[in-house]
């Protein structure tokens, strides 16, 4: 009932673990994969290791969290060795490898190294707090098209381009990724934000600014998915503030084929996937509608 086909990948439901949430190693990804989930995404990885920023790297805020991890990762070669044990059986949960690179050649190299162990590549074009990477390249349509194109030339597996909402018009970036050869878009990553401690009178995050995630950004993400759905012809994966089944359904109605869940785990734990899945099932049964019919349904103009 909830099975979907996302750019050729068979997912038992449309729920995907978002990048940077728990995806640091094989065993923990395996544990998440056993939680009623359609696919899992790794922490973003680059060509060489990054230590990340000094702390605090996370701050709770009213309706979400601010984070500035600084893309800590051991580098793609270590990750590839770590994930070589992942079960690539067609019925197993697909593993999406999240990568970044500051140039098209670098992104292509990282993608080529990790591709043998992954079912798809997600290009992080949108981290708001890593200079030279992510948003630094993801806000320029030409750079986005070139990076996606370079990765397209380097790997045979599907490519997802993960977009930032911190741009004037997300559809321009989405179209650039589509023409570069992306098979799907992921929207959205976190939004640039910050918090100040009034007692110590200084920014709370070690990196001063970070990315806002959680329920606070959901309406922004819904709009991004809604706009992209009109602008591109490739599937969209919605992300941003999903905590309940209702939230996930809202994304599907806006035009998402699948959704990613990250910060919600801080509120609900790993049972969040089962909770959302059950709610979606009940909704589809009650409304007598299929998941495929639901995608983008909020776009219809008349009753």
């Amino acid at each position, binding site marked *: 009932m909830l099975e979907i086909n996302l750019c050729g990948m068979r997912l038992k439901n449309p729920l995907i673990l978002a990048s*940077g949430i728990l995806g640091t190693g094989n*065993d923990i990804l395996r544990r998440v994969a056993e939680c009623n989930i359609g696919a899992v995404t790794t922490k973003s990885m680059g060509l060489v290791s990054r230590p990340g920023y*000094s*702390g605090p790297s996370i701050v709770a805020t009213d309706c979400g969290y601010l984070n500035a991890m600084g893309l800590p990762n051991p580098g793609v070669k270590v990750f590839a060795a770590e994930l070589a044990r992942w079960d690539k059986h067609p019925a197993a949960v697909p593993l999406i490898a999240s990568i970044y690179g500051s140039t098209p050649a670098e992104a292509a190299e990282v993608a080529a190294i990790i591709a043998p162990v992954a079912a798809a590549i997600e290009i992080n074009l949108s981290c708001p707090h890593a200079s030279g990477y992510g948003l630094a390249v993801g806000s320029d349509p030409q750079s986005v098209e070139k990076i996606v194109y370079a990765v397209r030339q380097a790997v045979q597996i599907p490519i997802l381009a993960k977009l930032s909402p911190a741009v004037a018009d997300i559809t321009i970036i989405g179209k650039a990724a589509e023409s570069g050869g992306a098979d799907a878009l992921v929207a959205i990553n976190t939004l640039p934000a910050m918090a100040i401690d009034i*007692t*110590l009178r200084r920014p709370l995050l*070690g990196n001063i600014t970070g990315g806002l995630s959680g329920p606070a950004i959901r309406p922004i993400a819904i709009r991004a998915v809604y706009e992209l759905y009109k602008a591109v012809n490739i599937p969209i994966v919605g992300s941003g503030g999903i905590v309940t089944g209702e939230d996930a359904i809202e994304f599907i109605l806006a035009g998402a084929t699948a959704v990613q869940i990250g*910060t919600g785990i*801080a509120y609900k734990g790993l049972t969040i996937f089962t909770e959302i899945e059950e709610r979606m099932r009940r909704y589809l049964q009650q409304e007598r509608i299929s998941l495929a019919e639901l995608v983008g349904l909020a776009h219809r103009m008349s009753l």
Partner: protein
Amino acid sequence: MVWIPGCDEIPLSISSVTGPNVELTVVRVGEATTRLHALKIGDQIGLRGPYGQGFSFPTNETTILVGGGYGIVPLRFLFHHYRRYSPAKLPVVALGAKTATSLLFIAELNPQLIVTEDGTAGKKGLISDFLPGLIKQVQAQRLIVCGPQEMVNTLYEIACNSGIPIEASLEEYMRCGIGLCGSCVKRALLVCNDGPVFTTDKLALLCKL
């Protein structure tokens, strides 16, 4: 999690709580702890937490608290809790360290067993050499442990051989402390959230026999 402004945020365990005051015991090992040592009265730091799973508090069992080096710190907090809420049944304390000067809180905890690697205080050797004897002697029903991973591994084995449950507080590098970022994974477990205190069944996955 303790925030040292302008430096870093690090995970620390609580050493003692009196009224509104939280006491931390910090060993100078790196930049952040050096900065903590340099603080003066009136300086401010940030605190968030506590997070994760703590020790159990069995008051009807004979329990041995085993601290290795600075691992005694969170056990001290637990010991205080016993002193306050279960004064009639205090746990037995066993302390091990490299050398006499790294033994903390001896006067306060009144350990029944002290072991140092160089023999400068108590018995000479490793705490694990003497623990089976102590378990028999006091007819221990549970071990509660904090210390280096190798010590936890051996004590896990000893507990299994003695047929008693063990819980151990483990250390790992942490960033978020709330089970999101995956910095603290050991196998499939999150030290910040599933731990830092793990019970026998989880330790079975973490301490190789």
